[in-house]
């Protein structure tokens, strides 16, 4: 189903990101082959200019990737109107085997490109560019993911078959079993809520301790905790909070909350959860770079900022996600 403005928009955006990525990787290869900070040849000066290009391209790529992530979900939401048995974006994404992987790869992409930019910022904060090699090897490793992203997306769109009236008979004899609901099953609500709020409290406590006193094992726990919390929060949003937002006990959809009917609250949830998890995760991930020449100060500074940002977003997330839940518990229904 390519002849549709959403498919075209997604493909266009995917191609643009790919072109930006390929250009950045060209620089990466040149830097890896010829980088020599002690020389002052023309080539080295060109390369020093080119790393600006690479970083700008990746930064644009990250921005565009976040946009396509949103666009992808919204597109799935419009596709569902023409697909049999799909009630919302979940159904449309499950319509073939490529929808969910494409979505997951896109989300992973946001984290990986974001982490590259963190590396880059650390790198350019020092005059000797100590991370240049690592940074560009990493960039080259991202490239396959970019290809995987656009391939999965293209396959997903290509294998979507809209359901239209054909000349012989319009009755669908296939099953129109509902696919919208049970993305995640088998979690007890109370247990999940306990885990969710428990994790929030533990993460906040660990974060505050880390801000007071830096302990490496605790930092590792903090980042690992964020990875865990990303999962828990996603499950909690899908199987507990979404019902309260929809005010329907059996409607558990991670995507419908992005709709205007629910005041776009989903964007607020995901755009606090994802950055919070990103900064939380990166706290421990940048730790190895402390050993590099004159990076220790910068890394420590970044870690402190990252912890602060992740805690602020965590607080926002807790507030936003609890709003409908508390509203229901206190007023006993929608106001």
């Amino acid at each position, binding site marked *: 189903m*390519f*002849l549709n403005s959403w498919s075209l928009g997604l493909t*266009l955006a995917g191609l643009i990101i790919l072109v*930006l990525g390929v250009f950045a990787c060209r620089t990466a290869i040149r830097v890896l082959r010829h980088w020599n900070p002690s020389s002052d040849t023309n080539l080295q000066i060109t390369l020093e200019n080119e790393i*600006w290009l690479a970083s*700008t391209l990746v930064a644009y790529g990250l921005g565009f990737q976040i*946009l396509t992530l949103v666009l992808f979900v919204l597109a799935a939401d419009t596709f569902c109107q*023409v697909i049999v048995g799909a009630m919302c974006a979940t159904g449309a994404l499950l319509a073939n085997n490529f929808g969910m992987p494409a979505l997951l790869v896109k989300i992973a992409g946001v984290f990986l490109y974001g982490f590259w930019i963190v590396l880059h910022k650390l790198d350019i904060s020092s005059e000797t560019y100590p991370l240049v090699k690592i940074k560009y090897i990493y960039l080259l490793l991202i490239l396959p993911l970019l290809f995987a992203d656009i391939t999965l997306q293209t396959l997903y769109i290509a294998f979507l078959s809209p359901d239209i009236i054909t000349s012989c008979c319009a009755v669908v004899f296939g099953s129109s079993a509902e696919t919208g609901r049970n993305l995640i099953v088998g979690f007890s609500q109370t247990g999940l809520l306990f885990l969710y709020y428990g994790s929030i409290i533990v993460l906040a406590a660990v974060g505050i301790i880390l801000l007071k006193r830096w302990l490496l094992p605790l930092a590792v726990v903090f980042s690992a905790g964020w990875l865990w919390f990303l999962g828990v929060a996603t499950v909690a949003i899908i199987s507990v909070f979404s019902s309260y937002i929809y005010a329907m006990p059996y409607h558990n959809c991670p995507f419908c909350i992005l709709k205007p009917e629910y005041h776009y609250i989903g964007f607020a949830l995901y755009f606090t959860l994802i950055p919070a998890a990103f900064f939380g995760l990166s706290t421990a991930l940048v730790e190895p770079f402390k050993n590099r020449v004159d990076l220790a100060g910068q890394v420590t500074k970044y870690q402190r900022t990252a912890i602060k940002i992740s805690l602020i977003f965590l607080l926002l997330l807790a507030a936003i996600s609890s709003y409908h839940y508390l509203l229901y518990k206190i007023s006993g229904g929608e106001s």
Partner: protein
Amino acid sequence: MAMIPKGLEKQLNTLDFALSSLWRRKLKNLGIMMVFSLVIFLLGSFQMLTGALTSSADAVLENTPEITIQKMSAGRQEAIPQTYIKKLNSIYGIRAIIPRVWGYYFDESTLANFTVLALDHNAMPNGSKLNLTLSDGHFPKKTETGTAVLGGSVQDILELGDRRVFSLFRPDLSLKSFQVVGIFSKQTDLLTNDLIVMNVDDARDLFAIPTSHVTDLCVYVANPTEIETIAKKIAGLLPDTRVLTKSQIQKTYQVVFSWRSGFASICLLTALVAFAILAWDKASGLSPEEKREIGILKILGWETGDILAVRFWESTLVSALAFIIGCTAAYIHVAFFDASLLKPVMVGWSVIHPPFKLLPTVTLADLLLIFTFSVLPYLGATVIPAWRCSTVPPDSAIR
């Protein structure tokens, strides 16, 4: 300014510089912006028109029967015998089956196309409420032969004025006269503008359809979750028919509209590519003054990153402004001018269509899509030229 964090203050100053730099080259930037706005206007008009048409189709389909049965013969639709209704008696869950006669009547003297519709409105669920759609009069009763209800423009085209009697030709060119017993109110113009509603017997007489035959059968189903099952059963009992469900028709409309807008988008992609090339070209062709300016900035201590930031803000400002102008123009085009430039592409190819108002429903999703189609290629096209000019070596620039 003490309260503003340092990083933000730097960005604000860069933004300020970008604004003044845009202003200094107003002619060039204005040109780019106008062309960009035009591209966005076209893309946006299509997107908003699709949305508006989809929602008006939804509104129309809301009150259609859940299932429509048409008899097919050699791949074409033909009149369906009323005896088919009896065959469906065994299916539980059907609330009512209404035989319907309808068709198009071409009036040769006025060159107008009317839609003629005939059904027994008393048998319909909510049928009694139909009289509310009339500005005066009532629907033709089953016993009143030779009566009709007219839509607003039918009355105008037939130049009836205060007269209550008009005639239509049968296929053999003999005249059949009707008495007007009601006029549709203005609120329902979208659906009833070209409509003539009459008795089933009169319509058969007018179109010379054999008695005991009708155009199609409308099936009303009480429980919406049973629609699919009932449709399947009907298709099994009446193998020579086409069974259309409401959701099927809705989906088909949506696919048709999205297909057409996708097709239009492909056509517009060429314009977009042309524009991206223009943007690339404008961004890479550095005048000697611009080169000098960058050289001076670099000597003053600006880094490559700072100049890139200025360029980024310039692109963002130009595209944001063009986006706002283009989308606003598109909205005005669709809402106030009924998308007169593009409607023929989207709405059938029939010349006689009732004039109806479009109400564009713009969602965040639509805007994001337009943004992806226009601003992303622009930013992508300007990023490499921007880098190229920000790496001009200072000594060569001011020499």
